[in-house]
């Protein structure tokens, strides 16, 4: 038994296609502790969704160790009840907000999860109200989900998971179909959950600015972990990001270009504000010399 909340060692997963085994994850090892906020980056087809589905017991690994919240998912004889127990702990937010809501009315959808768990009625009511308050959707409890914006629908989906009181939330490109406002709503909701409720978050994304706000960034490339570290460590390696087929954040690109011209810039900026600040400071220093 491992100590970590998520323990992955030499994990291998493959899809069978026309009788041929196509490996998708080729030996992944990582440990995630309770309360971490981890972003997973990788180009299309690098295996991010496959990893997410493994963590949730939707797919079973072909080889390697996989422990999530104390459940051994690498055990081939794992029974349905244990998967069920795992899924109470692990909430999963999918990309398309329309295809994960079951009921038409917001609060009835949020109640779906706890109803499946057999929670007593009065407690479901409490959980639903609390979950809607946590995602800032209390005013929409009686609204029709079809009338909500994409960001609001995703927040309802998140509330539906919170109502099951999970300890891990996996988001598989949950912001990919949203406009910038919706994206910010969802990211802030997740950050609040992580900070205030201690929910561990694994966020798959390909927006660099979302990854920059995480505690830790993991870069996947063709089924392998290419890099694993703090956002600052990851974004200070533009060559590695390019090799992984990812965009280099603009502020990283700028500071590296300036350094290549011999301008000495301290640190690694993660946001435009930080970047502007260190460039200004360097400029001023030059001027005073």
């Amino acid at each position, binding site marked *: 038994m491992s100590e970590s909340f998520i323990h992955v060692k030499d994990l291998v997963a493959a899809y069978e296609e026309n009788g041929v085994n196509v490996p998708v994850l080729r030996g992944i090892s990582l440990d995630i502790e309770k309360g971490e906020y981890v972003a997973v980056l990788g180009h299309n087809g690098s295996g991010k969704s496959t990893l997410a589905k493994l963590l949730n017991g939707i797919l079973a690994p072909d080889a390697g160790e996989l422990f999530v919240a104390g459940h051994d998912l690498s055990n081939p004889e794992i029974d349905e009840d244990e998967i069920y127990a795992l899924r109470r702990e692990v909430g999963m937010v999918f990309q398309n907000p329309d295809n994960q809501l079951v009921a038409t009315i917001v609060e009835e959808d949020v109640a779906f999860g706890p*109803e499946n768990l057999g929670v007593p009625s009065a407690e479901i009511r409490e959980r639903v109200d609390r979950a809607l308050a946590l995602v800032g959707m209390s005013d929409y409890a009686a609204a029709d989900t079809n009338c909500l914006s994409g960001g609001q629908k995703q927040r309802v989906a998140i509330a539906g998971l919170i109502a099951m009181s999970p300890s891990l939330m996996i988001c598989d490109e949950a912001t990919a179909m949203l406009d910038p406002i919706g994206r910010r709503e969802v990211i802030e909701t997740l950050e609040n959950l992580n900070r205030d409720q201690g929910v561990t978050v694994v966020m798959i994304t390909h927006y660099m600015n979302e990854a920059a706000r995480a505690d830790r960034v993991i870069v996947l490339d063709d089924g392998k972990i290419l890099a694993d570290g703090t956002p600052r460590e990851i974004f200070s390696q533009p060559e590695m990001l390019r090799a992984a087929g990812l965009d280099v954040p603009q502020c990283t690109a700028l500071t590296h270009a300036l350094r290549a011209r011999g301008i000495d810039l301290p640190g690694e900026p993660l946001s435009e504000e930080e970047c502007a600040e260190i460039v200004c400071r360097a400029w001023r220093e030059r001027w005073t010399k």
Partner: protein
Amino acid sequence: MKTVSLGQYYPAASPLHRLDARMKVCLSILFIVCTFLAKNICAFAALVAAMLILVALSRIPLRLILRAVRPVLFIMVFTAVVNLFVTKGENLLFSWWKLQIFREGIYNASFMLVRIITLVVGSSLLLTYTTTPIQLTDAIESLLSPLRVFRLPVHEFAMMMTIALRFIPLLSEETAKIMNAQRARGVDFSVGGPVRRVQSLVPILIPLFVSSFRRADELATAMECRCYRGGKGRTKMTIPHLHARDGVALVLLLLFGTGIVLLNRYGYGYTMTR
């Protein structure tokens, strides 16, 4: 905006909203029976009065109620016209070639109009507008639950209805989108004979099917991730309870039905022939 009248719940605090959904299902069936019982002018007047009372009780904006009638407009006109010309009677008002209109025909046509309007408005007020889709499907699940004895999948049926009610507006929106996309490529859905028209539907149906299957697949995964394992061991957020008001509503509607029967027998005025 959205024009689909299916499952258009309108949140409000009205006596109709507060009634138990199971009772509302029974009440709407009773009300529909009443619309078919009515035979003469007095009975139809009583129907209209009952409908107006329901409208007033429901606190639903009139424009929404009118929207419920729109989809059946064609059926209404069609039935009225058929009744107008088919009914034979004693007072011939108008005759041209083989067409004859009798006074009885006018009565019958108007009665049919009133019947359809009261039926549609009554059942949407009692059910779709004042009952959330989940309350509705829960009610149906609960009313059908005796059928479990025969091993009928009652819970699954109710879950299918829940999902259908949620996805029908989405799919109709998607159909409109695909049609526009095909129009932008120069497809004209309004030309040609019936064969051409059906053929031009193929490029709509195929993407629609593909996307529905993808949606179904994703929804099934999402439901599993939310620990759905069928109806066994499930609880409900709201456990419905019958209150005194539900009994009162039932008694009132039964009295109303009796009234309709009595008016049919003792009321005066023209009585429908069929």
